[in-house]
């Protein structure tokens, strides 16, 4: 009864709580702004053509990210080539083919668990299996295989969600016309689910671009003064190069790292923008 009698105080409390939550939320946004501003301030005057087109060097003025950029392009290309078919196929199997039995539940729980495994564990998995057992050395291929395992759960979960969102009436219509399951999937389910799948793929690949720990574990090098020419070449990647520069004590190298980060973030933002555009187009189409 005491509380009821205190209406002004209770209202004040409610108001303060509202303000507190709003303040805290904008604090999170402020973190982002400060982070981006700081990196921009430190790094933007390093990013020029010479920076993009030079190999790493002991001399700050000559150093660049050519090998890292090409390494990242190789890595993402191979990772996409390996993980996209496998991931989408797995998602199709689980949504369209598998009976809802124990095995399917097991695979499902398993994928959820894999999504929560720390990336460095994938790194030591890649180190033991691809680098040592398969003898792939510290090659782009070993890195891509490791990254593929890392992003497979993300691809599968995203693809499954968008396949599940396709109305079952579409499938039934196709079956009613005598199409087989694969014909139905290929001609109707996949096209309808494509925007969602693409969005998931882009997000998964941008994860692969930013991941550092697994590459460090499989031994991607920091000093690579050449552009990889095949999947068996050793390589470096943007995050590795950034890590290498950031872990040096000299301030100048920290600024180089900021320059590298700007390039990395620009690539990631571009990919995210593409994902958003695809999503919006699909939504407009649906309407």
């Amino acid at each position, binding site marked *: 009864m005491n509380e009821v009698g205190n209406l002004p105080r*209770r209202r004040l409390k*409610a108001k303060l709580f*509202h303000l507190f*939550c709003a303040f*805290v939320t904008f604090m*999170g946004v402020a*973190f*982002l702004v*400060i*982070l981006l501003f*700081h*990196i921009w301030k430190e790094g933007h005057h390093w990013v020029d053509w010479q920076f993009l087109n030079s190999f790493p060097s002991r001399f700050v003025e000559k150093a660049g990210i050519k090998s890292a950029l090409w390494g990242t392009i190789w890595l993402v290309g191979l990772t996409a080539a390996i993980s996209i078919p*496998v991931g989408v*196929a*797995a998602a199709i*199997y689980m949504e369209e*083919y*598998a009976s809802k039995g124990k095995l399917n539940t097991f695979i499902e*729980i*398993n*994928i*959820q*668990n894999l999504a*929560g*495994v*720390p990336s*460095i*564990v994938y*790194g*030591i*998995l890649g*180190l*033991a*299996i691809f680098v040592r057992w398969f003898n792939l050395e510290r090659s782009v291929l070993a890195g891509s295989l490791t990254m593929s395992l890392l992003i497979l759960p993300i691809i599968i979960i995203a693809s499954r969600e968008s396949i599940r969102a396709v109305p079952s009436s579409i499938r039934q219509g196709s079956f009613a*016309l*005598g*199409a*087989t399951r*694969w*014909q139905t999937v290929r*001609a*109707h389910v996949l*096209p309808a689910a494509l925007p969602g799948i693409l969005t998931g793929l882009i997000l998964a690949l941008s*994860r692969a671009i*930013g991941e550092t*720990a697994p590459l*460090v*574990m499989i031994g991607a090098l920091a000093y690579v003064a050449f552009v990889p020419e095949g999947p068996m070449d050793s390589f470096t990647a943007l*995050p590795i190069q*950034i*890590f290498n520069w*950031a872990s040096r004590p000299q301030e100048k190298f*920290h600024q180089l*790292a*900021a320059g590298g*980060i700007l390039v*990395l973030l620009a690539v*990631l933002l571009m990919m*995210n923008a593409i994902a*958003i555009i695809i999503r919006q187009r699909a939504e407009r189409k649906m309407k």
Partner: protein
Amino acid sequence: MEEALVRDISPKPASAPVNLFLRRGGRWQESLIQWVFYVCALVSVITTASIIVVLVKESWGFFREESIFDFLFGTTWTPLFVPRSFGVLPLVNGTFLIVAGSALIALPIGLSTAIYLSEYASTRVRSVIKPMLEILAGIPTVVYGYFALTFVTPALTMVYGETRVFNAASASIVVGIMVLPMVASLCDNALRAVPSSLRQGGYALGATQFEVTTTIVAPSALSGILASFVLAVSRAIGETMAVTLAAGATPRMTLNPMESIQTMTAYMVQVSLGDVPAYGIEYKTIFAVGSLLFFITFVMNILSAMALRRFREKYE
């Protein structure tokens, strides 16, 4: 899409045998395709199996040379120089120092953000803040490491005076910022899943929005909130690059966040950065520490999934 349909069903006059042949061929293809898809789905199971096999096999080699008891309960970790000692507790201590610090930031801020987004914010504010949090979540961890080193540590120096270049505090702060978006978005989902009839019941009894939120909505979403907390802790435990860059490389038993420490993940990076002989004891320590890391995060992920399942059973 329509073309394919037309092709598949268009009647082909006077070609019944051909049609039959095609259909049989179709069936054969069908089962091949299904089989290929099945193998792809099994890749994830094989991945889990190989993680376990690799961890067990390689750490088995380690535990044949060092006792598992000394490993789990020893308080000195000096595997890279003589006299060698393999007590993992200093690394665990470092990891949990980071976890505690980051939880102190991510959990309250994340939950408050979620409450603001789900209970207070207008659709417009939501549509601005949500993508910003997504961007924050998409920034690579090595960037956070750089930020800790070049911004947070100097900022701490300004506030507290002389600070070590590498310290647990600045690493925990950035790890906290890093997992904050995940907490916010999962808690937001949980809060929004609470049926609005519960809120309306509260308002009908004359409760203020504060009272409705804290005594009805948040408790109803409790298991979902807890699931996100556990997942956040698990993420912080596995975080690697930020702690490697900012927290230092000195394993020690300390609760002082201003000291330089080393986490389990940072140790693994440190070893693999040096040229490790493939079958030496240093190489095997990665897997012993990795097994412990995998085990801890695995248990936490399962706990989180269990909490989430309880939550879903209640409302979905």
